[in-house]
């Protein structure tokens, strides 16, 4: 009904094929697709429609500008996925969910938009380093405290200059710079609690 005539057809076979690939990739990296398969297939179909329209996998639940340079942060998986997974157990569109949601201990529901306002309005002149553009909004006080305890001493670089804390998987040594460790180590699958603050 609402479809435009020029939209090329996305077939159920294509959606299923992409689902299998994404599911495999997600599971192998410690992520999970939404177990509500009908919902997930619908989102994947939406992404494929967006791929036809724009040339990239713009988030199906956000309005893309159609200019890739302005939409980079909402190309799936978006810049906000992991922060939303940590805080709400699901990403904005709920294609990706946490283990808690998979297990049925938590429900994926609507969550606030984490994307900064200047990006929402499609202003291309928004400075990339503006505070709002930081994908993870941490708790500065807690971060400072954690930094003070972090090993490192006086050797350069000064860890307190880092934009993100660095977390180390104690099992395999995987390092990542983000406000908190991932739910599961993407390399060795060790769980969150096996990470330590490294820098």
């Amino acid at each position: 009904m609402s479809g435009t005539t020029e939209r090329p057809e996305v077939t159920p076979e294509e959606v299923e094929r992409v689902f299998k690939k994404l599911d495999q990739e997600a599971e192998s990296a410690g992520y999970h697709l939404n177990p509500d398969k009908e919902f997930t297939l619908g989102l994947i179909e939406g992404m494929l429609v967006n791929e036809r329209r724009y040339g990239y996998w713009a988030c199906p639940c956000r309005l893309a500008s159609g200019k890739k340079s302005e939409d980079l942060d909402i190309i799936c998986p978006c810049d906000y996925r992991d922060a939303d997974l940590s805080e709400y157990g699901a990403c904005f569109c709920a294609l990706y969910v946490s283990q808690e949601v998979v297990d049925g201990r938590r429900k994926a529901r609507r969550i606030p938009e984490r994307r900064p306002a200047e990006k929402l309005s499609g202003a291309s002149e928004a400075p990339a380093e503006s505070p709002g553009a930081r994908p993870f909004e941490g708790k500065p006080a807690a971060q400072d405290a954690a930094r003070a305890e972090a090993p490192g001493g006086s050797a350069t670089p000064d860890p307190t200059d880092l934009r993100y804390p660095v977390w180390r998987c104690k099992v395999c040594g995987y390092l990542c710079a983000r406000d908190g460790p991932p739910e599961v180590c993407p390399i060795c699958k060790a769980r969150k609690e096996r990470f330590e603050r490294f820098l």
Partner: protein
Amino acid sequence: MTFQHVEGTDKGRIVLYSLSTCMWCRMAKNLLRDLGIGYEYIDVDSLQAEEKDAVKKEIKKWNPDGSYPTIIINDKECVSGFDEAEIREKIK
């Protein structure tokens, strides 16, 4: 602006701004359908650029996040995002 009309019980003017690709929007449409409520909607992603900008501005007046779905009830109230309980509560 071309709204799509969906027939149903008259509960006042119910306007749904949606994206054709969004599952939460689809859930909102399905809920309104299941409740048998008449409403109108626009799939904003299917609009041409100028129209899109005008609609985005209108949505922002109600929902500063500009997120979808946005449902505006009788030009008085707004439900931002899909929340079944809130939709049921506000459209009575």
